[in-house]
């Protein structure tokens, strides 16, 4: 079975600074895969490379076996990969409903049409309502996205990402800056929306990671230190040394 995402010896440097050096990683179709690692390890950069935001310095990336190396973001999105952002990246002046609808239009096949009335596109309407229901923003339908609360904006961020029905979802720190209860809601949300899909997520909250992930990759200084099931990662001495141990000490002191 081909991997959903396959990274082959991926390198990325900004000028002379090497951020990612030689990452090879296979994300299996249908798994929930978490990428963890200390700050500055290159997790977000890796996301930006996979989703087409940055160009690779070297290496190859495959999506469902097809080469997507250095394609434009919209081309990668059309092949069925959708991502969210760590810093909320929504359409602030548009309503919640319109935000979601923007995520639906392309995959629903309406492309650049200027001969259809959006209001009359029942499939788009239905899908947008369904997504709003799922992310719990149905009641905030006509509110401008810029005036939502932080947690609501994060939910909308996820909503736009899944609206198009992509089979591979990349979530960049979906619980960043959230309270315990809010984090719990997001975990449940992520669990349901990624059912039957492939999920890759960057996450700092170890509770969330060990709760959700089928497999975990540890990224340290732009290299994959280890990949495995949560149990394997927990038991891995190198990981303990480089990352989890430090984290445990931190929390123990705090």
């Amino acid at each position, binding site marked *: 079975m081909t991997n959903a995402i396959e990274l082959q010896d991926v390198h990325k440097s900004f000028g002379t600074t090497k951020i990612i050096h030689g990452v090879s990683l296979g994300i299996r179709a249908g798994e929930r895969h978490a990428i963890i690692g200390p700050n500055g390890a290159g997790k977000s950069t890796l996301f930006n490379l996979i989703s087409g935001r940055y160009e690779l310095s070297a290496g190859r990336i495959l999506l469902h076996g097809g080469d997507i190396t250095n394609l434009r973001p*919209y081309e990668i999105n059309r092949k069925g990969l959708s991502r969210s952002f760590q810093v909320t*990246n929504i*359409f*602030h002046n*548009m309503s919640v409903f319109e935000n979601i609808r*923007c995520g639906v239009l*392309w*995959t629903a096949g309406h492309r650049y049409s*200027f001969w259809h009335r*959006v209001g009359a596109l029942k499939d788009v309407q239905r899908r947008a309502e369904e997504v709003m229901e799922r992310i719990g923003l149905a009641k905030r339908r006509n509110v401008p996205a810029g005036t939502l609360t932080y947690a609501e904006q994060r939910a909308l961020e996820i909503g736009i990402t899944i609206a198009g029905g992509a089979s591979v979802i990349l979530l960049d720190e979906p619980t960043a800056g959230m309270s315990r209860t809010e984090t719990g809601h997001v975990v449940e949300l992520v669990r349901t929306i990624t059912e039957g899909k492939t999920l890759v997520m960057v996450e700092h909250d170890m509770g969330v990671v060990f709760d959700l992930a089928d497999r975990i990759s540890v990224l340290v200084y732009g290299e994959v230190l280890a990949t495995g099931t949560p149990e394997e990662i927990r038991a891995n001495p190198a990981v303990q040394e480089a990352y989890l141990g430090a984290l445990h000490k931190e929390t123990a002191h705090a």
Partner: protein
Amino acid sequence: MRFTPLNLGRWILWSATALVFIAAPLVFTSGFSLTMMTQMGTLIIFALSYNMLLGQGGMLSFGHAVYSGLGAYVVVHTLNLMGKGSVVFPVVLLPLVGGLAGLVFGVLFGYVTTRRAGTTFALISLGVGEMVFACVLMFPGFFGGEAGVSTNRVVGKPFFGLTFGPALQVYYLVAVWCFLSMVAMFALTQTPLGRMANAVRDNPERAEFVGYNTQRVRFLQLVLSSFFAGVSGALSCINFEIVSAENVSAIRSGGVLLATYIGGVPFFFGPVVGSIVFVFFIVALSGFTKAWLLYLGLFFVLIVLYAPGGLASLVLMQFPLIRAGRWRELLLPYALAGLAGLVALAGVIGLVEMVYRLSEPGASTVLSVLGVSFDARTAPPWFAFAAVLAAGLIALRITTRRVGERWGAIQADLLAKAAG
């Protein structure tokens, strides 16, 4: 499933608009107002097409006259061929020819200009505008040089008895096309492309990550916009029976920017309001004073500074108050602020007119206001108008603060009510 209840309101609004178009020449019957209204209709199409770029697509263009102007040139030559009898085509459909010409040039130039957004787009559009203007002067064979190409709009067989010779018939030709264009451009805002143009304006990066090529969105939006610019160019050609380099000039491009901005970029109907005010400034005011351009500039600056949403935003701001039945509380503060504004305006006008009289060789320096004559070469009127201006500004400051306080209080009230 919910349905948006604004359709009835929309029907009423559009029917009212159509009625205004039909009835306007019955109310304003003079030849002067007819000329003005015909120009307003033409500019409304042009400004709405401009706002497809600026308001809906976030593209600040400094060269939009290129599309209306080149459309007008194609139409003027078509009209001349029709006059010679070598082409048979109904005059009523000429705006379609202009539109298609505009569209073709939109494809041609838009391919270059829309490759980038933001400042780069603005600069390239300026460059293309200057380039086209230079070309127009360089090929007098087709473009007629500075003098331009003139024509006669009364050609061919009458269309259901209409020759389009009389100004009233031209007005109705413009009115029909203006109404159709308004409906069409509004409809375009409600399509997938129209919605994504807004998305690309607000957050181009995210638009790329939901599958949209932002460059393609901008390009298509510009091409459609240049179609309507061409329509307006054709109508101006039919109206004036002459097309010259001025039609593609930066002055025209700047003019449509002013009209659109004064009316209100964030609102679909903004440019309609802006066009009416703009033509009024140009046609009506220029008959009264040589300083009309200065007044227009001053007005534009005030709008940019104090009402960046344009005149339309000032009107729309009142709707929540009217709905809540609180508008009466603001009548007095508004009236006082308006009065203060008029005083300040009187001061400005006095000073400006005196400057113009002095700077114009051979003009009489004696002016009269309310039966009082005075000489601009003497000091007292200068002190008097400066004092009027100063008093007006101080009063304006006090009264607008009062408006702001009252406004804020009511707004807070309404918010509290909505929350509780």
